[in-house]
């Protein structure tokens, strides 16, 4: 059936807003309070989150605007329209490689944290494999399905996460927030870089904009999504600092999860609440991972239209799995994360900005 106006290839602006928020919230925020606590004094990290967030919102705007100029055309199409086809091909290749690596990173990171919090003996290899298989099941279907999953999972995860934070309100030590404004601009700057990294992922819009049914409305919705994420990060960060203090927050690997450990569920129905919290968190990491993979597949399909999507999945998934298993521990994996953060800045910020400026000056695409 021709789907009765819900078109399986059409995406509403609200879905895209959720997608932007959902793809940002992944692994990054789990370690962000630690990084900020290491970089800045007391609770000054909020300035970093604000700066990083505002930069992000700006680039979300650019990316969405760029896509809105070329409704219905793929990344490859409009990059070739703005520049030249060889450049566009290289860009798209880089783009999909970036997202494939991102998929590998997210799923490996997830399985490592899962091992730490949920299992003692089960090997990471097995956890990573089953997680990737579920991701494969998700991307084997339509993109619209993935975006709808965001709408099912994201509000749920956000509610649980905020509830966990606010249950800690009694443990906050106001002393931890002082002194204020003691960090140097250099420290704030370093913090902003960290927070900007944790916001990345909105580049998915470059691909999904092609399916938006009302492209003009997307920039606002996407910026709203980014704004919600920024506010959420701010809350998480302030609670982590308030509860742990800067010194301990800088030492704890995943302050965002650890904070759930402090929670005392009324009536003590559960102990070790962080396991439940992390279990719920798996959903949002799943969303991030599956959208990253989906975006990579979309872009590769524009480059190699003759290969079927499902065949691509069969070939790429083992590669993703193997690449994900290369790093030995958190430190090596974080090194991969660092590389990804920089390539993400290139893909999500510089390239779209340049493309947008070129598109505007050359007058390519719709206004």
């Amino acid at each position, binding site marked *: *059936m*021709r*789907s*009765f*106006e*819900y078109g399986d290839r059409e995406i*509403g602006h*609200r*879905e895209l807003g959720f997608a932007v928020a959902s793809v940002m919230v992944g692994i990054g925020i789990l370690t962000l309070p630690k990084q900020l606590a290491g970089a800045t004094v007391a609770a000054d990290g909020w300035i970093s989150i604000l700066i990083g967030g505002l930069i992000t919102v700006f680039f979300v705007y650019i990316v969405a605007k760029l896509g809105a100029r070329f409704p219905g055309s793929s990344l490859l199409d409009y990059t070739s329209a703005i520049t030249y086809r060889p450049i566009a091909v290289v860009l798209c290749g880089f783009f999909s490689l970036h997202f494939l690596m991102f998929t590998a990173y997210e799923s490996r990171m997830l399985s490592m944290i*899962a091992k730490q919090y*949920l*299992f003692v003996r*089960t090997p990471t290899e097995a*956890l990573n494999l*089953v*997680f990737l298989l*579920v991701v494969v*099941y*998700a991307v084997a*279907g*339509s993109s619209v*399905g993935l975006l*709808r*999953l*965001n*709408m*099912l*999972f994201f509000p749920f995860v956000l509610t649980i996460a905020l509830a966990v934070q606010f249950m800690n309100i009694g443990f906050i030590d106001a002393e931890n927030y002082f002194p204020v404004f003691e960090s140097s601009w250099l420290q704030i700057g370093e913090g902003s870089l960290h927070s900007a990294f944790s916001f990345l992922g909105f580049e998915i819009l470059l691909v999904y904009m092609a399916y938006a049914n009302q492209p003009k409305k997307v920039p606002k919705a996407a910026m709203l999504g980014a704004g919600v994420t920024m506010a959420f990060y701010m809350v998480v960060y302030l609670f982590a600092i308030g509860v742990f203090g800067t010194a301990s927050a800088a030492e704890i690997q995943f302050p965002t999860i650890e904070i759930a450990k402090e929670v005392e569920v009324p009536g*003590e*129905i*559960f*102990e*070790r609440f962080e*396991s*439940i919290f992390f*279990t*719920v968190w*798996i*959903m949002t990491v*799943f969303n991030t991972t599956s959208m990253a993979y989906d975006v990579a597949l979309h872009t590769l399909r524009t480059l190699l239209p003759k290969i079927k999507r499902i065949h691509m999945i069969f070939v790429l998934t083992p590669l993703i799995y193997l690449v994900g298993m290369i790093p030995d521990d958190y430190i090596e994996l974080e090194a991969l994360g660092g590389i990804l953060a920089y390539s993400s800045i290139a893909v999500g910020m510089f390239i779209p900005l340049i493309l947008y400026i070129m598109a505007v000056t050359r007058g390519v695409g719709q206004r």
Partner: protein
Amino acid sequence: MEMKEDVNVIYRSVQENMDYIEAKLGKPNDLILRTIRYGGPGEKVGLVCIEGLSDSKLLNDKVIKPLQLEASQTRRETFADSAEPMLDYLEQSLLSVTEIKRSGDMNEVIIAVLSGETAIFEEGTSSALIIGSRGWTSRSIEEPISESLVRGARDGFIEDLRTNITHLRRRIRDPKLRLDAYTIGTRSKKDMTLVYVEGIIHPDLLKEVKRRLATIDIDEAEESGTIEQWIEDSFLSPFPQFMNTERPDRVAAAILQGKFAIFLDGTPFVLIAPLTFGASMQSPDDYYERFAIGTFIRILRYGAAFFAVFLPALYIALLEYHHGMIPSNLAFSIASTREGMPFPVIVEAILMELTMELLREAGLRLPKPLGQTVGIVGGIIIGEAAVSAGIVSPIMVIIVAITAVSSFAIPSFSMSISFRILRFAVMGAAAVFGFFGIVLVYIMINIHIVRLKSFGIPYSTMFAPMFNKDMKDTVLRAPLTMMKKRPKYLQTIDKQKMSKGRKP
């Protein structure tokens, strides 16, 4: 007599027609062939019907009696100018029956006779009259067994299509109520009716269902389940994509929302589509009770759905992988009850769940009074004995009982079966991967739900794609006066359910 070839025409001779029908049906002993003379020689009509399918009282009083007693020469002559004087006379003047039509097609006549109508042939005329004389004994109207409510209408559908349609007509007196008739089954030739309200239902939806119904090519449609399985979107899905109901009020409410219903003769179960996950968790009495009650019960029901699918799995995961999460006091008491248990938790759980399913199935198959005995024997005796024999732990029995009760609280029986099947998958995942497995299966179920469609409408509709206005009637049930519009996701033509700006 030799079997003649199939013909479509009606012979001019009454006897020839009767012989043909008799031979075609293989001389059945319930076929009534009656010749009645109303005038001189050659002035006769033949009457064909099937005993038991036709209302013999109606035939005696309104057809045979007038023919024998009142067929008078003078009144007949009024129609002398017409081409088929006798049939015209019968049709327009003599026979006091409501439903009557003319046919020149032998096949049509035979199918009509097989459906309970009566055919009348006239000597020397090549067409026949078909008299609506359907009348057979059917079950009386009873309270729907599978969907009983505390508050709400007590009448339920029965096996007779006409009675069922009457139920609906009595509820909706809108002249725009449409009943499209279909004949289903190349051999069974059953009546099926597609019901909707024109001016509410989205035209594309209607076009699509008509297209799908036209594709049905099957010998016989035993039950509406046959139709459902033929035209559903995905046959691999564990979830039902049609709602089936015995309640006329449910059908009336659904078609006024902009859905359609399919009635099939011979079954009390009527199909309603499109169905969404949210709609399958609703029950008519949510609307009959005041909104706070409706809302509370719906929330309870979502909780029940969660328990029905995940509770045993959570227990397995907690005991096998995450004992640290159980508060110490509880952990001790669980450990003490599990002391000396021969099986791991997963085996225990599967054992008990399977026993539970068996009991339920056995209770269904047995005659009603015995069914309850099975419940008692199974639930109390086996449970008690299994615990004291040390095969299962008492907590496991509690878990299984809560799970079973939760699955009974789901208003739709088909949905409840889906949950029961999924439960075993989740239990397996929990046994292998603990919480990680449970959440992955949960994600997979969700992936499936967002992809599934019922007549083009995503199964996850109301949650995603989200329609803010429709959230009033999902998990929550807003006060009646606040639900001024029909569900937006159905994209009805007439959007308004109440007049704007009126207050009681």
